[in-house]
């Protein structure tokens, strides 16, 4: 391609074609201010703050102005600066910007622009009109008084996350951001993915839980991977004083490109379960706190004495902990009696060869096979919606209600699942998203479909565990060790432990499982752990410890290693 030569602020520069002036400037380290623009979103040229002056003397928005041959622009000429100041004055005068009690103060892009351009007072009269405040949503505050109508949220909600909840109603000065055409946020089709709040430049869409907990630059930011399902979304966690304040989607992540779901973004902030903080032993019906060393000693002694030592591990722990667990049993305890807290159909696991989440976005047809990703794998649901919006067909096989039914081209009862084969006969690029716990009969049908298969494993490291040969509970055991992470232990698990006479549980939280345990050892949560997870696509990603574990609480891996040391 032909190179373009242009001049920015008098400096001749050479660029590839196809870029905007804003992009070119940025790549040369020239900071052109923007408000409606966001790097992840398509430019719309609405706020006009990024205007630059051309050689011809016109003011053009840099975000939408293509860099063309011979273009000459000034990015901070006196005219540009005056226009920007005036536009800022208009923005400050439009709604009610009371920084002194705004959650976003300090992190607000509008405020920063005011500072940058030295706005020391507002050219217009004081505020007179109150705009609505929608406080109905569990996590997100929608404060119209602070909205600058930049539409970042709308673009994030629609273009990035595929939900199409937010839009504009009315026009001109009466334009209002509105969920589902004037519904309160709570009653709208909002799925609480929070992308809107992440891109909002002001305090208009703010996260309620993190409100007034501090400014972004006072917080520690850690990149990690979400552990709430097997998608493995990249996250950026904000912590302060070892408290989790907010979670953002990591824009750079190849898995989720910055999009999260309610589980990933908000549930960790709302953790109310009671932590296990000290090792506890139950003897003669009494519970006693014991030292960690004593707990290890007691546990290993029991395991050593066992006839048939068994182990079950959580699919939410790291590959490194799984590895250590396998060695503990195979080497130190010479036992093959190990299992996983989840069980999958091995055939379903094998069905998926090299499917990846990106395939959904380019699919012509998507099948949801006995699975509803909305509540469990939100980003997958997001991707499905995006695919459908782009024109893909969606087929759902289910006997229950599916939250994506609205988007479906056709819904089949499970008894008519075989109809899929004919329906998809002529489709190219088919993605089948399935529940990996399906029956073998289902797999017989699916085998006939030419498609990419994506089994939605439940947990962050389910696939990692399966790959290490762990799947399903063990058969029988007298002394069992359960590395539970935050699993509480469902009825099936508890039932399978009936024969266990001595149960050792390594757990994050107090649960029915710890109630059943003879010995409890506290463990660090995934937020306090470093290592790797293998997501449903088979990508192995780094997990970083976001917070410090409470004093004396160790990670699964460290505890298991202490077991091994004790066993020699």
């Amino acid at each position, binding site marked *: 391609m032909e190179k373009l030569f242009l001049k920015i602020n008098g400096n001749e520069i050479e660029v590839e074609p196809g870029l905007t002036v804003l992009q070119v400037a940025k790549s040369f380290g020239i900071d052109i201010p923007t408000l409606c623009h966001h790097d992840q979103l398509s*430019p719309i040229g609405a*706020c*006009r703050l990024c205007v630059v002056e051309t050689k011809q003397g016109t003011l053009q928005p840099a975000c939408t102005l293509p860099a063309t041959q011979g273009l000459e622009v000034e990015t901070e000429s006196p005219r540009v600066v005056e226009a920007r100041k005036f*536009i800022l004055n208009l923005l400050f005068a439009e709604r009610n910007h009371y920084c002194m009690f705004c959650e976003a103060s300090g992190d607000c892009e509008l405020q920063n622009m005011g500072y940058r351009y030295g706005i020391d007072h507002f050219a*217009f009269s004081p505020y007179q009109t109150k705009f609505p405040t929608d406080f109905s949503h569990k996590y997100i505050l929608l404060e119209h008084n602070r909205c600058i*109508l930049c539409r970042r949220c709308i673009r994030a909600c629609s273009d990035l996350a595929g939900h199409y909840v937010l839009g504009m109603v009315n026009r001109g000065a009466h334009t209002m951001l509105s969920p589902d055409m004037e519904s309160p946020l709570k009653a709208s089709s909002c799925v609480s993915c929070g992308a809107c709040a992440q891109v909002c430049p002001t305090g208009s869409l703010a996260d309620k839980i993190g409100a007034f907990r501090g400014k972004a630059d006072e917080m520690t930011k850690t990149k990690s991977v979400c552990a709430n399902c097997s998608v493995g979304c990249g996250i950026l966690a904000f912590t302060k004083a070892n408290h989790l304040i907010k979670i953002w989607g990591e824009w750079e992540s190849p898995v989720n490109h910055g999009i999260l779901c309610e589980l990933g973004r908000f549930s960790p902030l709302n953790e109310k379960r009671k932590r296990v903080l000290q090792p506890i032993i139950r003897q003669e019906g009494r519970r006693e706190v014991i030292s960690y060393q004593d707990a290890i000693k007691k546990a290993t002694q029991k395991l050593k004495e066992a006839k048939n030592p068994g182990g079950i591990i959580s699919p939410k722990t790291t590959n490194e902990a799984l590895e250590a667990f396998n060695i503990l049993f195979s080497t130190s305890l010479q036992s093959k009696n190990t299992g996983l807290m989840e069980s999958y159909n091995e055939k379903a696991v094998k069905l998926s060869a090299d499917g990846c989440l990106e395939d959904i976005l380019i699919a012509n047809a998507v099948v949801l096979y006995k699975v509803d990703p909305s509540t469990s794998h939100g980003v997958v649901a997001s991707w499905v919606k995006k695919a459908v919006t782009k024109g893909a067909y969606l087929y759902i096989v289910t006997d229950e209600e599916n939250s994506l039914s609205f988007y479906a081209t056709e819904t089949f009862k499970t008894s008519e699942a075989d109809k899929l084969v004919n329906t998809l006969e002529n489709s190219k690029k088919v993605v089948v998203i399935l529940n990996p716990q399906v029956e073998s009969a289902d797999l017989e049908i699916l085998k006939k479909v030419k498609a990419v298969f994506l089994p939605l494993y439940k947990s962050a490291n389910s696939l990692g565990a399966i790959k290490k040969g762990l799947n399903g509970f063990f058969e029988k055991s007298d002394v069992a060790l359960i590395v539970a992470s935050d699993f509480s232990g469902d009825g099936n698990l508890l039932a399978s432990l009936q024969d266990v006479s001595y149960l050792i549980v390594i757990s994050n939280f107090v649960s029915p499982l710890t109630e059943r345990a003879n010995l409890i050892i506290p463990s660090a949560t995934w937020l306090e752990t470093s290592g790797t997870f293998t997501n449903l696509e088979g990508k192995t990603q780094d997990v970083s410890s976001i917070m410090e574990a409470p004093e004396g609480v160790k990670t699964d891996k460290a505890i298991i290693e202490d077991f091994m040391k004790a066993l020699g």
Partner: protein
Amino acid sequence: MKIYRLHVLLSTDSRSILRGALEVETKLKEEIIKKGLENEVQILRTGGWGIEEGVQLTVYPGGLIYVINNVEDIPYLVEEHFLKGRPVKKLMYEIDAPAKVEMTAPIEEEIMKKQTRIILRNVGLINPEDIKEYIAHDGYQALAQVLSTMTPEQVISEIKASELSGRGGAGFPTGFKWELTAKAPAKPKYIICNADEGEPGTFKDRVIMEGDPHSIIESMAIAAYAVGANKGFIYVRGEYDLSIDRLNIAIKQSKEIGLLGNNILGTNFDFDVEVRIGAGSYVCGEETALMESLEGKRGEPRSKPPYPSTEGLWAKPTVINNVETLANIPLIILKGAEWYKGLGVEGSRGTKVFTLFGDVNAKGVIEVPFGFTLKELIYEIGYGIKGGKNLKLVQLGGSSGSFITPEHLDVPIDWNSVRKIGAGQGSGAILVLDETRCVIDFLKNLLAFFNHESCGKCVPCRVGLPKALDLLNRVTSGNVEIDELGFMEELANVMKNTSFCGLGQAAANQILESLKYFKSEFINHIETGYCPANKCGRL
């Protein structure tokens, strides 16, 4: 084809309807049947002449205009004129000119005497709901000629040679526009007729659509052939019920006889047209906003480039032409570019339809070749200022247009001459204001209109307009300092320089021009606390 002895054009624009046009129609029909004239007198619904009184009836032949203020006058009118052939003087429209002009002469002689009707050639003459009448007036001849004897390239070069320019306001050469789309590689391509005539006071497109809908369809088909499109949309302003009805009737009739659809006139050219109804947003007259709206999105303008020629509707190459522009096409094809170039002046070929309104004696839609001066338009065709008052200001080109002060009355109205005085003719609206008008009151109304129509996308327009209105309200409530006029100018300049689309820029222009030509009037208001025109109430 049925031949009527008398054609009665009944004004059924919204204002006429409010004044009882439908009652008049019912009564007329009743009386005509009573007198047994139903096979002799045809009643046609049309728009009005812009006369701000009564319900207007234009009777052909003769072109006499009656103004009906009372339904009770109908029996007498039918009896006297329709039956006995004696025009009823007391019901005739009188122009309130210094020398009272009685419209007793045929309309061609009085109102049409200086006009040249190319675009409006069929308006008022044919029954717009009957394709046969259009065909009888050489309709679809041009399409037939194009399809049978011309290549698309030839069509484009003919249009280019005619120097036809867009009548929507910008005056972009139509042939060039077509050529860009024809050359764009992407497919499919689209033709859009912009019939979202939202300019207050302007109704020339409506007159065309109501009076000659087939001319639009024929032109679109020609354009489609020229650029390689097979689908067209007419985006009509929602309030134009009658236009929509008549366009739909016309489309249906054209399809029935194979002038639309597949293999038109036996060739392998396929073309179909659909009418789409706008929701009454001024900004949707802007071509990219119109396309957003057609796509089912919020009607807000897009950034340009890319231009519609290469990335228009659904990001496909699109020709978008105004109603009036399109109406020229068949005659250019039939009579040739050279003939067409004989009309108008250098740089502005052909005729232009103007809507003349405001404080002028004869208001309405007029068509003249380019090059008439405003003086001629106002004082000769418009019979001068009402009540013999002096002219204060002409707003040329509609709400978004420019101010023309009396010293520029001799400037000919053509693209170049108008541009030289820093103005534009826009949609061809000519609003005449006499000396008793208050420019601030006028500006306030204009800005209120823009404020209502702003789409809300960009900051300068969305926020600037209400703030400018606030300032103006403070001027008229005597609560402003003179130095705030400088601030108003600053505000207008920012709006003009940074608004996303023409709406905000045009609104800012109105402020700047008001301040440029009439600053003393502002100062007068502020200093004396008194509106010289007594329009602003007690300050």
